[in-house]
């Protein structure tokens, strides 16, 4: 019994040690995303709703089904649709806002991803490693834009998330993302973020005299989006939240995690202390039987 207890202690200590050896990769130790790097500037005033970005995305990324979509029923983002249009009826025609991952500088999805499948790329976008995805869907539920998509078995929960990759391999090789390359009107521009912020501001200044609601969306939001929009109307009209935020539970969760680690370490350390003290007390305490024997001996001695 004594030995097995010792073994148990050793094993527990080992397990806790292993837990502590893991480098703290999340939350407090997280390296922050760059506001610099590459970006895209989407100008809704130049979009003609041709859906070429949608087709080019599907084509380049080998995603199934490319039918020219109906603006009345635009295909929503899904694991097979990484880029789509958010069409808005204006007058007789349609104005569209290209919809895909906005590659936030402060990305809720990266913060909540438990496996590290989602991470910040040094070039400025939010990359993901599909092999690491556990299909938990936290990114789907925490993204302020509702971008990451996941379709899996509802019962087993097995699923893999998908979203726009910013055509990472193309960009890494000095090319534009497929959607930007395909855009015939210059509504999707790719370049250095600092330059695109400048360009976006100039474009808004040019629109302002005739349109007071013209604005650049994404230069400040969530630490700066890496997909920014020149809008000629309120963000909500184009399906964008006016004031996107990393949801509060993200921070609560970060705090809970480290409270958990701290409390677990404190509790186990408390056990160690308790064991030493309680064992000592038990060893020194006289057992009733021993007391009886001692008394008998004393009586005999007399």
């Amino acid at each position, binding site marked *: 019994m004594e030995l097995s207890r010792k073994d148990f202690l050793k094993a527990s200590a080992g397990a806790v040690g292993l*837990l502590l050896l893991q480098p703290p990769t999340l939350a407090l130790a997280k390296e922050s995303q760059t506001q610099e790097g590459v970006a895209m500037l989407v100008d809704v005033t130049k979009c003609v709703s041709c859906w070429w970005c949608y087709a080019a995305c599907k084509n380049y990324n080998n995603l199934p089904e490319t039918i020219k979509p109906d603006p009345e029923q635009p295909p929503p983002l899904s694991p097979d649709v990484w880029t789509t249009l958010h069409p808005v009826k204006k007058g007789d025609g349609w104005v569209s806002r290209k919809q895909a991952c906005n590659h936030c500088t402060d990305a809720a999805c990266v913060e909540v991803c438990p496996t590290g499948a989602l991470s910040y790329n040094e070039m400025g976008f939010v990359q993901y490693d599909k092999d690491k995805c556990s299909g938990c869907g936290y990114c789907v539920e925490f993204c302020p834009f509702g971008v990451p998509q996941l379709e899996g078995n509802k019962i087993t929960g*097995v699923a893999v998330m998908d979203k726009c990759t910013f055509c990472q391999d193309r960009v890494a090789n000095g090319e534009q993302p497929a959607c930007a390359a395909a855009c015939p009107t210059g509504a999707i521009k790719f370049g250095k973020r600092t330059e695109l912020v400048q360009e976006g501001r100039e474009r808004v200044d040019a629109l302002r005299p005739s349109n007071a609601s013209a604005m650049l969306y994404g230069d400040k939001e969530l630490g700066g989006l890496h997909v920014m929009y020149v809008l000629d109307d309120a963000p909500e009209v184009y399906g964008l939240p006016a004031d996107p935020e990393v949801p509060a539970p993200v921070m609560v969760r970060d705090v809970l995690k480290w409270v958990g680690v701290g409390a677990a370490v404190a509790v186990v350390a408390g056990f160690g202390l308790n064991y030493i003290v309680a064992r000592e007390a038990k060893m020194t305490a006289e057992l009733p039987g021993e007391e009886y024997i001692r008394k008998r001996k004393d009586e005999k001695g007399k």
Partner: protein
Amino acid sequence: MTEPRVVERFKKRTVWFHWIHTAAFLVLVVTGAILFFPGIGGAAAGGLTRFIHRIAVVFFVGVPIVYFIINPKMSFHFIKETLTWGKGDMDWAQAAPLYYFGGDEENMPPQGHVNTGQKMWQFVVLATGVLFVISGFFMWFLKDALSPGVFQWCVILHDIAFLLAFLMLLVHIYLGVIHPRMTESLRSMWDGKVSKKYARSHYGKWYDEVAEGKK
């Protein structure tokens, strides 16, 4: 006829229930903790652990239901016992530090079938069980119907339940298996019995009731 030297603390079916439930919960803890504690999430890659989590939860929820159907009386007694708190519990709390560290048994008031500390554990098991099941049910089956905000707080609820249950589980294992004075605790959950001596010193009030034949 010689009197037996042991008294029964738990029925065989309770012992079985305890260990099946324990196994299910340990699987849930391991497959859940990797999504909670920082830096170990890589173990969840591929989603297999999330599938195992769902299999384990069938037992975690199913076994208590089966137990309840077989033993409604004992189950109600367990719930009543868990929710009954009084002055005696304050007395226990006052005596506990010296008892668990120094082994001061004299100032520890005689305890019933479970002592106040065990009752705290039972309470955490019940309360977090409810939290776990509700938030988990929402996240599993109502994901598409829920607004993202509700889902997010379900994750937090699940986290809080985990934290409470996990920390108390550590205490439960330590006291049941390792603490120098709890020499027959593990045994009582193995064959359901403890020696009369152990019962007298650890659960004096209960032992007297048993000895008087009240139970």
